[in-house]
């Protein structure tokens, strides 16, 4: 077996050997990713010990017929804050349709387990919540789209649902519920919110999402990796670049494709531009939600200017269609790249003046401070990442913890706040925009002149194209990639069989971060909900897939 582990991973492996009663079987390892096969008894032993050592469950997913095993295989991906390595525990329930739940130990597992239950029909014994997740009432009972037996195609929706989706009931004197959505009163994505309130203050909130479930993971099945880049871009519109990069990185690692430095640098520049426009939208949105158009406008203007820069660089305002396996589809015109530093200088001046104006308004500070607090204690159990975690005192950033691409040589300046309220998130997001501007300036300096495709690009492009047809078979393998999108850490896992995608799992930062909102709103008044929601900026599309 090809085992090239870094120190971090070796340390992780020895920690696990120390905790586990029986030695787990090492399935495979890469530089900072190890897969350990573990027995049912071993699994029960090890999970509480991992929780004690502050491991977060960053992903939990299932695959059918993995590496010649019959039936199902479960993957539990764990990571410690600040460490690069990812530990994947592989559990093989085989044809068994019932396994034990870990939601009691890792709360972030609850949605993952419900998701697997919907997709594959696996039950989790002792689960806290057995309701369906992404399959709403319009789907038949017993329909499990991610099973191999189901061939993708139209299904007939249920006319009259037999089961009602039961929301959590909060009873007591003066408690009443406010149902909101799925269609909201503005230009935003659909989702349902159930507020239980006593007068103005919110007592409890339950969210129901997945109205936009489009079946992206199933659509990827059987496609060639190059065909799937567009699907990755469609996971969430304002994370197109991050998700395309994440998907490509996972395939590149699995196939051993190395990306030239120029392409890595350009990818990083675009990732930072995406971060800037995304965060600018948040700053503007937060100001709008407290009725402060004078502060919001300059942020929106800057955002549109970034969109236009994106178009000049790549031909797409959302940086779509430029990322391919092994590098970039085309080089970026020098004329557009040369314009960037001057643009960013102008940008920074306008940005600082807009930020000063925001921070010198006492009414804005009054609404922002102490609103929507997310406690630091929630970060690890719920796997909260991105600006949200950094505003609550946790410095986690995938670009720094587990550097990839050009971030191996160019790290952003870290920024942390401790209060965890809306104001902290506003400040953090502003800091991150400044850091991204500086990073782009550094990335554009002395850019190497070379092709933007991998040397073995031909092979890369042909992965899967000719397999099966003329007998030649492509790569078989699997790999996990983590990227830092504007909202936090996104996880991409691909499993290739003969060069075709057999299973593609995406988990965006929003998927985990959404669960913070039910905690953040407690005790706040209903009119502050839109502000809290905006300050977290969660993607519905990126969650619903």
């Amino acid at each position, binding site marked *: 077996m090809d085992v090239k582990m870094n120190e971090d991973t070796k340390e992780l492996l020895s920690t696990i050997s120390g905790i586990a009663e029986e030695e787990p079987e090492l399935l495979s390892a890469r530089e900072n990713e190890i897969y350990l096969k573990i027995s049912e008894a071993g699994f029960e032993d090890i999970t509480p010990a991992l929780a004690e050592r502050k491991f977060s469950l960053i992903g939990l997913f299932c695959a059918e017929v993995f590496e010649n095993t019959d039936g199902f295989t479960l993957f539990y991906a764990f990571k410690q804050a600040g460490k690069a390595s990812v530990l994947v525990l592989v559990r093989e329930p085989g044809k068994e349709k019932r396994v034990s739940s870990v939601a009691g130990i890792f709360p972030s597992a609850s949605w993952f387990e419900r998701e697997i239950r919907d997709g594959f029909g696996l039950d989790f014994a002792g689960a806290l919540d057995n309701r369906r997740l992404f399959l709403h009432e319009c789907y038949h009972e017993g329909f499990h789209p991610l099973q191999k037996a189901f061939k993708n195609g139209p299904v007939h929706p249920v006319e009259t649902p037999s089961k009602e989706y039961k929301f959590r009931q909060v009873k007591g004197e003066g408690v009443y519920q406010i149902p909101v959505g799925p269609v909201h009163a503005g230009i935003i*994505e659909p989702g349902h919110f159930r507020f239980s309130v006593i007068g103005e203050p919110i007592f409890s909130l339950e969210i129901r999402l997945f109205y936009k479930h489009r*079946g992206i993971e199933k*659509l990827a099945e059987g496609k060639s990796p190059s065909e799937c880049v567009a699907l990755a871009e469609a996971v969430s519109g304002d994370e197109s670049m991050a998700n395309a990069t994440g998907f490509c990185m996972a395939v590149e690692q699995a196939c051993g494709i190395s990306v030239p430095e120029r392409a890595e640098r350009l990818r990083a520049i675009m990732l930072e531009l995406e971060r800037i426009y995304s965060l600018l939208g948040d700053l503007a949105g937060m100001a709008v939600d407290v009725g402060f158009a004078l502060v919001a406008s300059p942020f929106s203007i800057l955002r549109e200017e970034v969109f236009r820069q994106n178009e000049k660089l790549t031909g797409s305002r*959302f940086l779509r269609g430029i990322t391919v396996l092994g590098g970039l589809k085309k080089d970026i015109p020098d004329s557009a790249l040369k314009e960037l530093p001057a643009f960013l200088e102008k940008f920074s001046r306008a940005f600082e*003046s807009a930020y000063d104006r925001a921070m010198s308004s006492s009414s804005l500070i009054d609404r922002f401070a102490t609103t929507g607090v997310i406690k630091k204690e929630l970060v690890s159990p719920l796997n909260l990442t991105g600006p949200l975690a950094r505003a609550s005192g946790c410095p986690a950033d995938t670009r720094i913890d587990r550097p990839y691409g050009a971030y191996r040589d160019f790290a952003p300046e870290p920024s942390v706040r401790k209060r965890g309220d809306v104001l902290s998130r506003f400040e953090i997001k502003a800091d991150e925009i400044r850091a991204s501007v500086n990073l782009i300036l550094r990335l554009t300096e002395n850019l190497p002149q070379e092709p933007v495709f991998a040397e073995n690009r031909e092979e890369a492009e042909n992965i899967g194209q000719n397999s099966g047809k003329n007998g030649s078979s492509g790569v078989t393998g699997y790999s996990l990639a983590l990227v830092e999108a504007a909202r936090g850490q996104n996880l991409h896992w691909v499993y290739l069989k003969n060069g075709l995608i057999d299973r593609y799992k995406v988990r965006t930062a929003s998927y985990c971060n959404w669960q913070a909102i039910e905690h953040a709103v407690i005790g706040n008044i209903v009119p502050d909900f839109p502000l809290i929601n905006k300050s977290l900026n969660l993607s519905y599309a990126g969650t619903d897939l």
Partner: protein
Amino acid sequence: MVNPLSLFLRPKVTETFKFRDEELEALGEEIKKEIPKVFGHSLAIRELDSGSDNSTEIEISNLGNPHYDVERFGISFVASPRHADILLVTGAVTLNMAEAVKKTYEAMPSPKFVVAVGDDACDGGIYKDSYAVLSGVDKILPVDMKIPGNPPSPKEILKGILALVKKASK
């Protein structure tokens, strides 16, 4: 700290970036002239996301930013379908949203128009073969105008709206 007086004394911040776009202005003026032919003084639009990847919504909300500022052309985005003349639908219709899409349409007063914005809304786009979508919006609503693009730019969306207004006045 900003001195409040400086807000009045110093030049406007928007002047850092010059963004007057003649094509957009002409387009807007034309829309402004066309609207009263069918819709009274202004055009009320309700946006409905039936399962998009959110890029199309971003472009639609960009229509309100200072570069485009379409309210000056008589176009406003309203909170309720009850106030709307036009329903702008984005994204392929997912099974999970189908019921809500129908109800939103039914809540609109007649006469009403439906515009599909973006490739996915036009014909299902990238999700065409998925179990989770019904394909384009025209599968469940009568669509009067389709604006393709992945996603269409704010200007393209505006052109589509103009085309619809012209079509409606015939």
